[in-house]
């Protein structure tokens, strides 16, 4: 009753061909287009950004802001805080955006203010994403009581209007420095992305490679950290961008209503001072418009970049002419 093995070895290392009935992603014959390099996350991200015009625009914009934030001294000659000039000057070559009511050079303020916003965006963005991952993926994978309680917390935060909550907490802490702003934003704004991450983690839960990991004896924590999270990199980056965007908007808003430290150099604080001096009514519109436009631009940069990740996460959104053909079989 023994069967001789034919030892059929799959022969050449040649181009892959799908020999199973359902290729992973749509792709025609020969399997050459079965999936983009799903593995080198950085490479995949770069490819996604490059191939989408909106994302490329966003990336360029963000890069400009980062460079400005890194080397503000190279671009703006004047100090942002020193009230060295005549107040309320209009636009001129000496003062590209004019001067404030206190005689400070507005262009310098805008340039130097970039740093503050970027720091808040990246630090709060990362911290929010970190919490969102712990809560979202943890809830999805641990299930049961953990899922229930973490969901409750997430839902409560989702339902509470965030901005009033921020105001209350910030006011309670008597306003404060950049660190306080970051803390406040981090603690309150992770719920939306936690939801998203939980959904995706849930959909991954039934993938066989997770069952395979359990069956070979891996511990729960290992599975979450090593097997689940790396497959979610695009969504993680997208969540980071969302959180960074909201951090920018929330921080600037808090600074605008005076809950930030009015002495820091930032776009939101510029708006605060502009408001205090009734800039728009007294013929100094640039004081409000310049920082406002910058906030909008930076926010737009994050939002545009997010388009690339929509496509990576959901292949159905990809433009047809570029990558997809229908299945050939």
């Amino acid at each position: 009753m023994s069967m001789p093995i034919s030892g059929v070895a799959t022969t050449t290392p040649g181009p892959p061909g799908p020999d199973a009935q359902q290729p992973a992603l749509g792709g025609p014959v020969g399997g050459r287009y079965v999936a983009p390099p799903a593995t080198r996350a950085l490479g995949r991200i770069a490819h996604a950004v490059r191939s989408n015009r909106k994302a490329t625009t966003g990336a360029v914009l963000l890069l400009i802001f980062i460079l400005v934030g890194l080397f503000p001294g190279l671009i703006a000659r004047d100090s942002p805080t020193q009230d060295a000039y005549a107040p309320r000057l209009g636009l001129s070559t000496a003062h590209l955006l004019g001067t404030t009511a206190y005689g400070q050079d507005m262009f310098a303020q805008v340039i130097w203010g970039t740093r503050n916003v970027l720091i808040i965006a990246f630090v709060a963005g990362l911290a929010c994403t970190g919490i969102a991952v712990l809560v979202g993926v943890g809830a999805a994978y641990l299930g049961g009581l953990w899922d229930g309680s973490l969901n409750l917390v997430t839902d409560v935060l989702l339902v509470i209007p965030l901005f009033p909550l921020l105001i209350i907490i910030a006011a309670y802490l008597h306003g404060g420095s950049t660190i306080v702003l970051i803390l406040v934003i981090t603690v309150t704004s992770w719920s939306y992305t936690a939801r998203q991450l939980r959904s995706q983690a849930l959909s991954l839960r039934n993938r066989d490679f997770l069952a395979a990991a359990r069956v070979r004896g891996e511990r729960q924590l290992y599975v979450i950290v090593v097997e689940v999270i790396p497959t979610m990199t695009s969504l993680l980056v997208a969540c980071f961008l969302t959180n960074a965007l909201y951090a920018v908007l929330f921080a600037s808003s808090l600074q605008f209503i005076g809950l930030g430290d009015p002495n820091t150099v930032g776009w939101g604080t510029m708006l605060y001072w502009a408001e205090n001096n009734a800039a728009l009514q007294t013929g100094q519109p640039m004081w409000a418009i310049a920082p406002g436009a910058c906030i909008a631009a930076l926010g737009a940069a994050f939002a545009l970049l997010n388009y690339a990740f929509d496509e990576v996460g959901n292949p159905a959104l990809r433009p047809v002419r570029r990558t997809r053909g229908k299945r050939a079989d």
Partner: protein
Amino acid sequence: MTEIAAEPLLRTERLTRHFKIGSALSRRTLHAVDDVSLAIGAREIVALAGESGSGKSTIARLLAKLYKPTSGEIYFGGRPLSSIRSRKDLLQYRGDVPMVFQDPFSVTNPVYRASHGILRALALHRPELSRQQRHEEAERALEAVGLSPAAEIMQRYPYELSGGQRQRLGFAQALSLRPKLILADEPVSMLDVSIRIGLLNVMAGLRDKLGVSVLYITHDIASARYVADRLIVMYAGHIAEAGPVEEVLARPRHPYTQLLLSAVPDPRAELHVSEETDMGEPPRVIDPTPGCRFRWRCPLAIDECAQVTPELRLLLPGHQAACHVATADMPLRAFG
């Protein structure tokens, strides 16, 4: 002929698994597996065949300790699985009884290279090996399942491998643990026909050359016959029939087995089509009543079938069936 020793390699005793479904208002119970007692010996391939809803995949997951039984017990090497408490014992069992999955496209993590799973498995189960030795062991396992050149294939990412290669990779991962029994859950169902035979031959080779037993779960009777020594047919969570594969196929005792055999398209055989063909409706396993679960489709059902759930009885040497009507020498009557 395989011999089942006094204590078989793996044995289940009235294994049962129910799932609760429905909302809080209408709680119902799905009887995925009910009272299953089967045995797998050393150096044999046992095919567990059935359609959707038969419970075969649930049995695989129970044996792999992915689910806990609702009742009943599983004995491996004489030892009940419920007595496994320490992580060390659990790892030992997982090393002895690994599982191969059905879908080649979701069984590998796309983020890591092909070698990831097998190297992790070795790190967990054979910690005495050095890194170099692990790589060598992995390569040996890959060669044993026909993946060549092993070193190069280990470096590839899953999307660069075909479905057949990924399934072989799954077997290699199981093999690297030096298992006693491999649970293979429909390993070839998603592969092209011309590739299936290669994998089936790999499985046969594992039994012949390495003495590994395999529980081959499938819905394809023909492939079960090709590779298995014994056949267990499941229906609606129960075992309908069990015995040596040639014996069961030649003299099926349970009407469901007869139905199944008559429905298999075999180009070399004549097609027998009666006017009344069974529609193939899935069985009722939600809050089932006592009695045989096949009775609604069975042309031989008698009163007792609606009242008493049939137990698995020995009809011929090594050949059991769970049917009130079946006898040792009944002619093929029910279907076809």
